[in-house]
């Protein structure tokens, strides 16, 4: 396990940070002000969480004019996935995931 993986797991081990990632997954390229307005947390608190996500590579920022936009970067999670789930087990895992989805969403 590398230091980079440690940062990813640490970043994901917090419900507020997972919420921020979900928010960016839903609508990418958000400013700090937008993210702050959706959380009951101080601006400083949101900045701290974003910093942890940035250090883990899960959030990438870009400048657009005067604004700093935050984007979700899914690649570090994919790297962890590719390291631990080999191509043989993946089929079984996805079959189980399909089964779970089907059982939970009967239609």
């Amino acid at each position, binding site marked *: 396990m590398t230091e*980079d993986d440690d940062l990813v797991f640490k970043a994901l081990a917090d419900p507020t940070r997972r919420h921020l990632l979900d928010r960016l997954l839903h609508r*990418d*390229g958000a400013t700090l002000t937008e993210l702050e307005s959706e959380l009951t947390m101080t601006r400083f608190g949101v900045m701290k969480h974003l910093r942890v996500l940035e250090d883990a*590579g899960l959030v*990438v920022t*870009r400048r657009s004019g005067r604004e700093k936009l935050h*984007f*979700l*970067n*899914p*690649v570090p*999670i*994919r*790297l962890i996935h*590719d390291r631990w789930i080999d*191509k043989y087990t993946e089929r079984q895992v*996805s079959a189980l995931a399909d089964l779970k989805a089907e059982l939970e969403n009967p239609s």
Partner: protein
Amino acid sequence: MTATTATTTTQVFRVHIKATPERIWEAITTPEWTARYGYRGPAEYDLKPGGTFRTMANEGMKAFGAPDVVVEGEVLEVDPPRRLVQTWRLLFDARQAAEPLTRVTWEIEPMSAEVARLTVTHELDNAPVHLSLITGETLEGGGGWPYILSDLKSLLETGTALMSEP
């Protein structure tokens, strides 16, 4: 029934690779390299503004009925080995081909003597089919950019891609 609304979206994908910017540049822009990772179609770039870009179907894609050219586009900016901007459109099926050209920016930044950072910024205007495929959200897309970049990292760092070569 809802009216069709214009959508603009930008997706950013970043990976650190233990390789020089020159090696990463070569891996992105030459058919010999692009045939060895990701979806493995040989990419042909005419590396000058206005130059043609296309990714050809490999044998596996053809067996599934893919057209000869599976991705098309135009080179907009070239600054080797740091920056490449191009348009990009998938042509595997009619739904993809009917969407407008999207725009891909490749940026390679050296972080140390050994490590470089590759950032792919994909701008998609009114291209929902492309969006669902490139993010890796849909299974039919096969993993999108996260898969391609993870595979590229594996190939450059270890000499082998994630899946055995055909």
